[in-house]
């Protein structure tokens, strides 16, 4: 039994080494100048009918930027959206920087945004989804115990685009994207061992690093 488990873990380790993630990065506007001190907010787009940009991905991007630069203060998404409720709900969220101008005509909103001392607003649109899957697995329960046998594999793809709005200039200043994909495996000899490709994490690292470079340029 011990030998079988050891074999499964070794197989898992080998296949784990095979897991790959492809990254495709694009920056449409080259960074002009970064920010020395100030605050930003990273928000997810949630108005598409069949998907939402995942809140944990937004948190991941925010944490990546916070870790990378001590001078940049990242306002948590939930805190920002609650503080400005109902103006950043899926129904009301501005789709362009010009719409923010109209929103600023409301004195309460203008005052709140001034209090937050916001320099950049970053919108993230996209999702992570499973693509193809194959393989089969059988599990059973008997008087002596339970177990599974088989092999499954599936692909995962992440596609995210970030749009940067500069609040000081009132302009959209950059767009960047990350496209990652990978293959996950699950062999099962008695115990299923999932070997998950870190597709979304890689997309987060990629997009987070690009945003960090942009925001830190020149500082």
């Amino acid at each position, binding site marked *: 039994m011990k030998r079988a488990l050891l074999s499964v873990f070794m197989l898992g380790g080998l296949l784990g080494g095979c897991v790959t993630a492809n990254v495709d990065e694009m920056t449409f506007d080259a960074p002009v100048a970064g920010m020395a001190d100030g605050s930003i907010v990273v928000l997810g787009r949630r108005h598409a009918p069949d998907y939402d940009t995942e809140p*944990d991905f937004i948190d991941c991007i925010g944490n990546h930027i916070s870790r990378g630069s001590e001078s940049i203060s990242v306002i948590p998404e939930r805190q920002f959206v609650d503080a*400005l*409720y*109902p103006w950043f709900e*899926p129904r009301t969220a501005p789709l362009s920087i010009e719409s923010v101008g109209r929103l600023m005509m409301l004195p*309460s909103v203008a005052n709140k945004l001034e209090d937050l001392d916001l320099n950049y607003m970053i919108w993230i649109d996209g999702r992570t989804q499973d693509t193809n899957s194959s393989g089969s697995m059988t599990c059973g329960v008997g008087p002596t115990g339970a177990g599974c046998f088989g092999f499954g594999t599936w692909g995962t793809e992440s596609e995210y685009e970030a749009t940067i709005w500069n609040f000081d200039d009132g302009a959209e200043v950059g767009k960047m994207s990350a496209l990652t994909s990978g293959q996950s495996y699950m062999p099962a000899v008695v115990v299923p061992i999932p070997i998950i490709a870190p597709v979304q994490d890689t997309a987060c690292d990629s997009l987070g690093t690009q945003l960090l470079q942009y925001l830190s340029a020149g500082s």
Partner: protein
Amino acid sequence: MVGRLLDSMTLGRKAQRLLTLITLLVLAACTSREVIVEGSFPTPLVDPVPVSVGVLFTQEFKEHELVDDATGRGEVSWRVSTGTAQVEFWSTLFPAFFQNVVFIESYEDLQTYDVDAVLIPKVADVQYAIPLYTNVKVYEIWMRYNLALVEPEQIIDEENASISLENMQPFAEWPLTAYGKTPTAFMQSDIDAVNLAAVMALRDAGANFITSFLRVPGVMDWIKNPEEAQ
């Protein structure tokens, strides 16, 4: 059937009862889901409308729930109680949206407080969709409300010293729709996802109310002159 199956096994009486209970609980858990909607609701960031409003939550509104019994094999019954969350949400929103708000609980409240109008929200319909039925990886909730603004005198029943909504004639009456969705997530249960979708729907209802209220026919005239417009 469960009892007959257990009789065929050599178990003590107490063990049989316990096993029956566990089996029935497991079966019940497989076929029904109950959600009592809970969430935290922010105070809206708005410049208050300069009117004094009484808000009347009917018993039906306070206890609203969506019940969907399973009709086919493999389906699951759902009971989604939104009443408590509705009251909590609108009790946060209205006092921020109107300059002065009084929550009307009784006939005496209507006699005591001088309000420009009474706002009566009603949940007309709530529907839901889960990935099991739609094959789309989102949980969705739709809500439809009917809102009415009425003169306080319209709902006072002097004879019985009570509130009566039977013959009221609102000076403004309008429908309000709301939609909330949440994507499927790793380790998230159906119940948590439906709760989150309901919270999003409530937030959307508030956003819709705030952005559309001044466009409701009759409302603008009433705000300009609360005493006469009715």
